[in-house]
């Protein structure tokens, strides 16, 4: 493959970096297309034929812009769904741990002098959990509404940013609730020392923490991709109506 074609495909891949799997697929299809165009050129495989093939294919940024809204909407929608499901996953882990406490008492050395701290942490835990669930549901619903509306690219970007901000707020609440859960479990379990009976509670805390980390990573990735796609919308102009 020539440098000219390779350079064009690199630009196309970079412009489509908001959706890596799409970028790989599009690169392969574009390469095949350009090779066929060059092969059918009456002048043969010359640099001029390559340049003509690229011109006929179109600007990489224009092609990427046609994918941006549908791809990023889908990713944001998945993030909203993930946030909601992760909050529910945290609830399941929390409830199964509480159920286990109920069936295996006494597994630990309860510490009555820590009751007030436990009460505060319990309140923080409950409050942050319900906040997380409510905000995640609102964020998800908002993303779905934004996806359906016939918005301009600027309005759509604003809606995406607002809905992802809601998902970020839900994530913060999830992190708070998982931290409170971990602290509550530590207060309950550690005084008894290490034993087989703390394995399951420990596992549920690890599960909650993992879910929270997955959510943080997912939101960071989508927000970075949304930010990196800004140049595509700048090229299109803010007045173009282009909802998928």
């Amino acid at each position: 493959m020539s440098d000219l074609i390779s350079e064009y495909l690199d630009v196309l891949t970079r412009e489509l970096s908001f959706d890596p799997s799409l970028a790989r697929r599009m690169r392969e299809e574009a390469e095949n297309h350009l090779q066929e165009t060059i092969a059918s050129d009456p002048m043969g495989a010359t640099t001029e034929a390559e340049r003509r093939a690229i011109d006929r294919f179109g600007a990489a940024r224009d092609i990427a812009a046609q994918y941006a809204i549908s791809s990023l909407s889908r990713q944001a929608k998945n993030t909203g769904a993930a946030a909601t499901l992760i909050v529910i996953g945290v609830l399941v882990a929390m409830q199964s741990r509480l159920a286990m406490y109920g069936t295996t008492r006494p597994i630990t050395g309860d510490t009555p002098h820590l009751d007030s701290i436990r009460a505060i942490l319990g309140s923080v835990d409950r409050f942050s959990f319900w906040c997380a669930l409510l905000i995640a549901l609102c964020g998800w619903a908002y993303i779905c509404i934004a996806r359906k509306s016939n918005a301009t690219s600027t309005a759509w970007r604003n809606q995406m940013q607002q809905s992802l901000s809601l998902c970020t707020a839900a994530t913060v609440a999830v992190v708070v609730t998982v931290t409170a859960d971990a602290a509550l479990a530590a207060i309950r379990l550690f005084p008894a020392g290490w034993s087989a009976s703390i394995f399951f509670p420990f596992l549920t805390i690890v599960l909650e923490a993992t879910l929270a980390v997955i959510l943080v990573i997912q939101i960071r990735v989508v927000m970075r991709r949304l930010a990196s796609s800004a140049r595509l919308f700048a090229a299109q102009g803010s007045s173009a109506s282009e909802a998928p």
Partner: protein
Amino acid sequence: MEGEILKGHLDMIVLAALESGAAHGYAVIERIRARSGGAFNLPEGTVYPVLHRLEQMRMLESRWEMSPVGRRRRVYSVTSRGSVELADRRTRWSQFSDVIGRFLGEGLPCPT
């Protein structure tokens, strides 16, 4: 023909181009160019977002296959849903173009 006018009808054009049989992106563009007598002359890359969108809407399906020269290429074909959609769009387009034709040709009174 103006690209902006065409863009609104690209889904229908691509479905119609694939109606006669499965094809990869390059062949789709060639068919569009041939069937329009060269009037539809879009940037060729424009067809891929349309192909991918129609595939997501399950109006097209695709698979990788080897070309005669040994290159891997993605071939698209119309699904039954795509055929139904194309028939529906044809009917609507026919009705629309009839009305516009009569309106422009015979000076129909404007609806109030």
